């Protein structure tokens, strides 16, 4: 039998700091998986731009000098790596029943299934968002935005790699099967959907993409922050490094929505329109009116809150107790980090009234993470409002009440306005279109989604960025179209 074995230099192809070259078992698993990943990327990755040269950031190491290498690359040739934050010697489990014990370097047998589930859920969101966004390239408002989309996409791809590494390295055959499944599920596919509901919706337009990266990727950031504290050290280290990349996604969202708002306000001022509700006149300027942007905020904010799961949950309590998933920024909190006797206030809607109930803190971890998330969103919203105020336009963007438009958790049956007014079902139905973008809003936004692909060109509805990527100007050729 003559078998031709292609010699692949995996250290070169897959930047890593996990000594991949010396780990035969892992190498074999990845050799099986990598071509399938590539196939998935070509099938389900950004449509129509696989041959373009994109000015991307590649992480080749975790030190400050190695983790952001900029250069032109074709996306299928992107070097997806396996990079973990450096090991902290003597690290201890910082919370839960095992607090103070040395962090686990191997999977603790008793928590194997729970840990695998956490990793699979996190891992599933990464390729899902690439699939959701795969058609956006065709309508990019500029080469700069196109490049940012692709940077988000390739990094979601790398986050998939990070989770697949954990599955393949630590979970044997089960892990390898789960890693395969991550490439087989498809966003929005009725037969094999992605695990979380919000990841099965297509991202229909660029404003939705920016809203998604601001609101929904921020959920990802909160989840990663919680997993970054995990007692399972390889997971903690993986998530810590992923967070540095996640920051770019937050940036794309915050500045994308901000630049949209900026352009709307500028256009209003130029045209002498002072009433933000003069929607028809504002839309005629080729920009998105602020009330529509507010409705998009309401939607993306509320559906993202659903991703946190039920506010009161024994699953979350178990994961915390087991030392697998902590609270947001656990080590910066000052308490006993076990929470056996603590309570946490959770808002409920009882008999038409909001009532705060003290729940056992362990059970209320999802509710708490959700509250931390709401607070984290405010910084960006505040910046948008400053931007509006600077132009002299009289309007404020606000995040809706946390009970608004919920499909999961304690508010599932309540009808609540963005301002927090509890309504009857009839009142809700009558006013829903004031608060959530209508089909017409969607059609209008869609009508603006004309590609703008000249160097330094920006679509009518969005302002150019204040600074470019990697110190480059706004009119840099961020994507060389093939």
């Amino acid at each position, binding site marked *: 039998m003559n078998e031709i074995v292609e010699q692949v230099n995996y250290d070169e192809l897959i930047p890593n700091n996990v000594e991949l070259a010396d780990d035969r078992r892992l190498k074999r698993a990845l050799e099986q998986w990598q071509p399938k990943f590539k196939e998935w990327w070509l099938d389900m990755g950004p449509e129509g731009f696989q041959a373009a040269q994109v000015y991307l950031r590649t992480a*080749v190491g975790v030190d400050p000098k190695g983790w952001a290498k900029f*250069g032109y690359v074709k996306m299928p040739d992107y070097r997806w790596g396996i990079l973990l934050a450096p090991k902290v010697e003597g690290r201890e489990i910082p919370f839960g029943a095992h607090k103070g014990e040395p962090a686990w370097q191997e999977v603790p047998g008793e928590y194997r299934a729970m840990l695998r589930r956490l990793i699979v859920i996190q891992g599933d969101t990464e390729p899902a968002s690439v699939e959701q966004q795969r058609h956006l390239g065709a309508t990019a408002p500029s080469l700069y935005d196109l490049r940012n989309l692709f940077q988000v996409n390739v990094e979601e791809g790398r986050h998939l790699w990070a989770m697949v590494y954990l599955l393949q390295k630590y979970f044997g055959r089960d892990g390898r099967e789960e890693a395969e499944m991550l490439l087989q599920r498809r966003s929005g596919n009725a037969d094999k959907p992605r695990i979380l509901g919000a990841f099965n919706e297509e991202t229909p337009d660029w404003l939705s993409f920016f809203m998604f990266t601001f609101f929904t990727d921020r959920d990802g950031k909160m989840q990663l922050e919680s997993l970054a504290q995990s007692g399972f050290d390889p997971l903690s280290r993986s998530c810590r490094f992923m967070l*540095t990349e996640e*920051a770019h996604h937050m940036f794309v969202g915050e*500045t994308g929505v901000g630049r949209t708002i900026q352009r709307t306000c500028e256009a209003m001022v130029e045209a002498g329109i002072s009433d933000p509700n003069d929607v028809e006149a504002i839309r005629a300027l080729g920009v998105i009116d602020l009330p529509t942007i507010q409705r998009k905020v309401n939607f993306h904010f509320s559906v993202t809150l659903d991703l946190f799961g039920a506010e009161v949950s024994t699953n979350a309590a178990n994961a915390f107790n087991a030392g697998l998933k902590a609270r947001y920024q656990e080590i910066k909190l000052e308490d006993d980090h076990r929470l056996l006797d603590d309570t946490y206030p959770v808002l409920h809607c009882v008999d038409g009234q909001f009532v705060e109930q003290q729940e056992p803190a362990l059970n209320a971890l999802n509710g708490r993470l959700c509250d931390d998330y709401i607070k984290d969103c405010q910084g960006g919203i505040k910046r948008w409002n400053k931007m509006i105020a600077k132009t002299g336009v009289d309007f404020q963007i606000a995040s809706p009440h946390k009970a608004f438009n919920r499909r999961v958790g304690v508010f599932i049956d309540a009808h609540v306005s963005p301002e927090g007014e509890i309504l009857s079902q009839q009142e809700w139905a009558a006013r829903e279109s004031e608060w959530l973008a209508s089909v017409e809003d969607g059609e209008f936004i869609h009508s603006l989604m004309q590609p703008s692909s000249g160097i330094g060109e920006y679509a009518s509805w969005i302002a150019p960025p*204040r*600074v470019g990527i990697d110190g*480059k*100007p706004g009119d840099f050729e961020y994507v060389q179209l093939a």
Partner: protein
Amino acid sequence: MSGAQPKRQHLIDPEICIRCNTCEESCPIDAVTHNDDNYVVDADKCEYCLHCISPCPTGAIDNWRLVSQPYSLEEQMEWEELPPERQIEEAKTEPASEASETEAARILEVAHAGQGGSVVPPGSAAKPYINVFTRAEPAIARVMGNRRITDAGTESDVRHIVLDFGSTAFPFLEGQSIGIVPPGTDDKGRAHAIRLYSVASPRDGERTNHNNLALSVKRVVYTENGEEVRGLASNYLCDLERGAEVKVTGPFGNTFLMPDHPEANLIMICTGTGAAPFRAMTERRRRHFSNASGKLMLLFGARTPGELPYFGPLTKLPERLIDRQLVFSRVPGQDKEYVQDRMRKHADVLAEYLKDENTFVFICGLKGMEQGVDEAFAEICQNNELDWPELSTQMKAAGRYHVETY
């Protein structure tokens, strides 16, 4: 006022920052902190290690102000935008050092003396990294190529040396220099002095997207008191074999930088290996901005074509990219011609350029050329109703006139 020395203060632009906490995470000495509104840098703690710069997703982190009194944390936390650059104006008489290693800073100070001290960089220049690597912690580069780029028969042995940095990020811009640490010690047992060489490649590498750069190095050999003297560093570099390791410091220089806006006209005047930074700038234009509206003009002097570094490749550059004026002073049977003579021949063109606020003049090469070039500009101005002393002062203040000579 205490009359304290001006300090280069590291600041974060609150309008661009998205409060992602990455800088705070990446700072090894906890100099970055935050409140609900802003992320801020503690001027008393920051040691300019720049570890926070590349991880920042927004570029907000890369802001610097020259101040006589650093802004306090409390002040910074209140900001809604960065303060205006007023304090830089006040402090301009005490310019920021171009390199924080005194050794390299001193060399650049001498090289830039011809422009009347340090000037500001072109407004559109990218922000340079400086001093990422030091004598104590140099980057290790590997020689990937070393070939002669002057004719074999000539006295002038100039070499094109390609250094590869492997997995070590070595960020540089066109116009910056790097330091070479020659191995060994002098006869008193002290480490040899660092030598600076201008980078001859554009920022994305000698080969696009490769982590490498090229130097143009002239082998220094001369006779003193009847004995042949060989320059230590240049001979070390010129004799390097492919694969050899070299200790590199830097990059250095934060003023002699290429303007990044495509409307910029670049007048590049050089002799010998002074062409290195211009090769970098030209190549950047060629690769990424070949349709730029700004023009490139190169006035390059050498004794003969055979002694002009990169003569062959230069002659192949398309005319629409660059107005190439190669000037020779020792071609048998021809009159001696120096760059200043050629400048006078193109007085009309140069006068038009000088009237354009998008024109940037760069002079690089032997000290001896400075005066001649200056006189030629003065004469061109005089004949075209321009006031050279005033214009050159304006150009320097605007970062549009740069001299680097040795």
